């Protein structure tokens, strides 16, 4: 590949192609789409957390002037509960029931019907005219309550150990023999933890516009994958995929929450029934009530180590709330929890527990922060018990090339140790702390994903380049793709335009998720560009009348090589493009592939907090995140990912939580009371980029976007312990909780 010395665009903070549009308000998000004749769709949602639907009478709503269509789950294809219908990592049985309740409502906010009308107001009035006869059922939200023998059962078809249960699934990994391992340990620490559900908090609520004409549907929507939108719409309506064109709008954040659909199939049915284009847009309240947060959890983690700081055994069990339908991210904690460490004996176990709240959706490294929270807090206690510096303990046990992870793989070259060393050597780790301040560290791991990507690289008549990929750009992938293409072709990156193709112009491309886009699309783009370069060389050879093998591509031009060297003036890309027609026609290439070798990513964070002991407020005052990113194609974007992940993790640790009232309804469905950090809550988060290239990728890329949300929960908890001498075993560590713990400690000290 490109040798380090003459790299021109990879690693450069090029100007983001979407930047000007975004800051000037020109960027077209899904809610900006309008069409002549467009009408508005609205959803009727269940007021009950759990109820059987005896009947739904929509006749009055249908009779209201201005109403053009009404739908219920009867208008969707039915997927029987006993036959899995996988689409990606989702299952249509659950997706369809999540989008529109069938037989039962399973959470307050669960859609039961939808209408489309000429105005939003009429649509809202029509919702009030729909009569739903509910048989209200007992409900359960808490994960531990949901597992009790007398808990209300959500789904009759779910059985665990032969009995009706809310435990919908289980995942287990075993390495070595933990019992034997713990027998060798000098120190064994076991603790239980609890986390609350937290929402992805993307700024843009879900929105779409769907138009159907002559049996062909066009869907404009905000999603993390237009092909996912097309696939789910096709499944739900029975339309063939070629009759659905899904166009990805500019997206205002997703963080995993837009890897599934909520509105598009509903709008599609309403559009089919009404013959009019239908627009739907959620309110923020609907986003909180009915779209996926991630799981709340309880967990238990046990780690045993010898006096010299060698971890000999580790065990972890996680119970994760799935919400209304199966699918909690148990893979996250069970697979990633102990992955940073080389431990001979490991046992991890996870349970997928359904309960009466909205179904979880992916959230940045799904489940892994929950795993790391428990593991990294116990690691801190083990280090303390052994009298070893917590980073030193991590270093002594660091996973490295050749380490076998409990979830299966043997790691190739990875950069975990490098993150720990960088943290130990960073001035932050030695900086003095002020009064009421404390410092904590934690590490984290995320698998990263590969999968299907398609790319098309076209050379324009003037020698500029258009690249089309199939992934919505959430984190700056257009800029990274432009950097890579410009690098390979040896041209100015401003000559490269990168577009996101809709489902009718580019081949299948899997979701923007799993930190996979820059990784996988770089592979498809690299292969396409290499083919383009071969064509360019062949065209130059034809012009010169020499053998194509005797042409090399260097610095954006074809040069004769070998015995022809110096015999012809080099031909630039623009010159070859100008002659494309006479040398064989337009030049371009497309590749479609299933990217493999997305190696995992590791990070280690240092967090300083300051606690107001009288008010119980913990504030992060300094934060440094160290991450092995493989290769930073666009460093500013990589830093942005690391800072964003850390910020979300800090919010999870300190203030964010879903609060339910006594009727099982979410009580804080707004950004006022769902307390994500605001800008002034956080210090500038320093991102330290470490580059241990992924040996399986042409540019060395590893996924970047998810790892940084994994360590903060424990890093903050460990810092608060360091400041106060009090360990918290549940999140969020909100002011009332901290103050209550301080008072209790004072009381105990006084007694």
């Amino acid at each position, binding site marked *: 590949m490109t040798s380090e010395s003459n790299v021109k665009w990879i690693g450069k903070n090029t100007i983001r192609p979407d930047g000007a549009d975004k800051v000037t308000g020109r960027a077209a998000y899904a809610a900006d789409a309008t069409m002549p004749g467009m009408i508005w769709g609205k959803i009727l949602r269940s007021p009950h957390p759990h109820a059987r639907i005896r009947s739904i009478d929509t006749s009055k709503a249908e009779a209201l002037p201005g109403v053009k269509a009404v739908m219920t789950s009867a208008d969707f294809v039915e997927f029987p509960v006993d036959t899995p219908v996988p689409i990606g990592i989702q299952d249509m049985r659950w997706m369809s029931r999540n989008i529109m309740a069938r037989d039962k409502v399973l959470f307050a906010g669960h859609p039961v019907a939808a209408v489309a009308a000429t105005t939003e*107001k009429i649509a809202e*009035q029509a919702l009030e005219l729909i009569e739903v006869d509910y048989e209200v059922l007992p409900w359960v939200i808490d994960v531990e309550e949901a597992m009790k023998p007398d808990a209300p059962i959500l789904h009759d078809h779910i059985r665990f150990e032969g009995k009706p249960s809310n435990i919908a699934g289980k995942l287990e990994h075993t390495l070595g023999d933990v019992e034997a391992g713990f027998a060798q340990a000098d120190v064994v620490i076991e603790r239980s933890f609890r986390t609350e559900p937290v929402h992805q908090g993307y700024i843009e609520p879900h929105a779409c516009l769907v138009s159907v004409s002559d049996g062909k549907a066009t869907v404009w929507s905000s999603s993390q994958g237009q092909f996912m939108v097309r696939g789910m719409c096709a499944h739900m309506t029975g339309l063939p995929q070629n009759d659905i064109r899904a166009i990805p709008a500019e997206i205002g954040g997703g963080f995993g929450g837009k890897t599934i659909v909520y509105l598009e199939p509903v709008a599609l049915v309403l559009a089919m029934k009404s013959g009019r284009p239908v627009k739907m847009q959620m309110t923020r309240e609907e986003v909180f009530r009915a779209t996926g947060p991630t799981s709340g959890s309880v967990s238990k983690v046990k780690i045993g180590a010898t006096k010299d700081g060698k971890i000999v055994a580790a065990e972890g069990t996680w119970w994760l709330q799935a919400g209304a339908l199966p699918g909690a991210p148990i893979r996250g904690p069970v697979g990633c929890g102990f992955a940073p460490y080389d431990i001979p004996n490991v046992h991890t176990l996870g349970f997928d527990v359904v309960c009466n709240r909205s179904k979880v959706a992916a959230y940045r490294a799904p489940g892994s922060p929950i795993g790391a929270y428990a593991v990294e807090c116990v690691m801190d206690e083990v280090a303390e018990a052994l009298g070893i510096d917590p980073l030193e303990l991590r270093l002594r046990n660091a996973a490295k090339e050749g380490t076998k992870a409990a979830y299966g793989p043997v790691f190739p070259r990875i950069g975990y140790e490098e993150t720990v060393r960088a943290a130990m050597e960073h001035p932050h780790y030695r900086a003095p702390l002020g009064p009421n301040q404390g410092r904590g560290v934690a590490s984290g791991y995320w698998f990263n994903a590969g999968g299907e990507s398609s790319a098309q690289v076209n050379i324009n008549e003037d020698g500029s380049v258009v690249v089309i990929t199939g992934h919505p750009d959430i984190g700056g992938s257009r800029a990274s793709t432009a950097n890579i293409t410009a690098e390979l072709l040896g041209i100015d990156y401003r000559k490269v335009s990168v577009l996101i193709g809709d489902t009718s112009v580019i081949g299948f491309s899997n979701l923007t998720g799993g930190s996979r886009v820059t990784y996988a699309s770089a592979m498809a783009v690299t292969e396409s560009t290499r083919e383009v370069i071969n064509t360019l060389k062949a065209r130059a050879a034809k012009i010169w009348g020499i053998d194509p093998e005797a042409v090399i591509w260097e610095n954006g031009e074809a040069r004769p090589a070998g015995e022809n060297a110096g015999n012809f003036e080099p031909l630039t890309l623009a010159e070859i493009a100008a002659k494309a027609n006479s040398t064989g026609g337009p030049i371009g290439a497309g590749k479609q592939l299933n990217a493999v070798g997305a190696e995992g990513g590791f990070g280690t964070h240092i967090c300083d907090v300051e606690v107001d002991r*009288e*008010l*119980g*407020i913990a*504030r992060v005052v300094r934060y440094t995140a160290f991450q092995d990113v493989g290769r930073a194609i666009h460093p500013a974007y990589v830093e942005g990912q690391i800072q964003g992940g850390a910020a979300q993790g800090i919010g999870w640790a*300190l*203030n964010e939580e879903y*609060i339910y009232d006594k009727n099982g309804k979410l*009580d*804080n469905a707004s*950004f*006022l*009371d769902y*307390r994500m*950090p*605001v800008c*002034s*809550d956080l210090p500038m988060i320093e991102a330290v980029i470490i580059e241990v290239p992924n040996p399986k990728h042409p540019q060395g890329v590893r996924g970047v976007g998810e790892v940084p949300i994994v360590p903060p929960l424990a890093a903050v908890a460990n810092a608060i312990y360091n400041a106060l001498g009090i360990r918290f075993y549940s999140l969020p560590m*909100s*002011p*009332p909780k901290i*103050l*209550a713990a301080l*008072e209790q400690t004072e009381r105990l000290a006084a007694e």
Partner: protein
Amino acid sequence: MTETQYLAPHSLDEAVSALLAANGTGRILAGGTDLLVQMQAGIVKPGLIVNIKKIPEMTSIEETPDGGFRIGAAVAGAVVGEHERLGKAWPGVVEAINLIGSTQVQGRASAGGNLCNASPAADSVPALVAAGAVATIHGPNGRRTVPVEEVPAGPGRTNLAPGEILVSFTLPPRPPHSSDAYLRMIPRTEMDIAVVGCGVSLTLENGKCTAARVGLGAVAPTVLLVKDAADALIGSKLEDDALEAAAEACRAACRPIDDKRGTIAYRTKVAGVLLKRAAAIAADRAGRA
């Protein structure tokens, strides 16, 4: 479907008659940062909206002949923040008004709206109560004045009669070595709603507190004037004992609820902490040696 009428009168009498004619369906619009949000959420559905920002008396700040201030009820927070002499005399009132929302919200939100929305957590109200501000109210039967703490009746309810409009706040003249301060506890650093708010206004003479008032927010159905806390401060040199006694009076005055924003125990404890901190700031501003 009922339509909403909109009116922007230039005089108070016009506004009052329009409100009366609307038969209880009328709503006053100042900055709209509460009203429009509530309309969006479907909580209120006014038949008539009366925009009061065209009434000069309600959108101006004046210095009274005796050395006090008269702040129009509809003056936006940003305008209050730019009034230099007001800021010198009543830094606590001004900081409380300026804490409302964000820069964008400050361009619209008024202290009058803050008071009449009658949220127990309204930020400007404890400071206005501590300041001894008097509300001037104009209605069908002419004008009346009441202390600010008598305007709210409970969460979302005021003691204004039908057709009555809050016109302005009057702040009394300031003796030398007087100042005030407002503090609120929020889990975040901004864009949050007070879990507890505390305003303290005091006057010092040779280091001794000769006058004081304490307003406490978000710990009861309405913002409280805590006389016992003020009494604990008056006559003291703000020694630890006096501050602790005042804090205890604040805790004792609390009648909070447990909700998503804070627990009873937490709010009660914090009320005392904020009293001490706000008193210290006010004393420093008053020129405590």
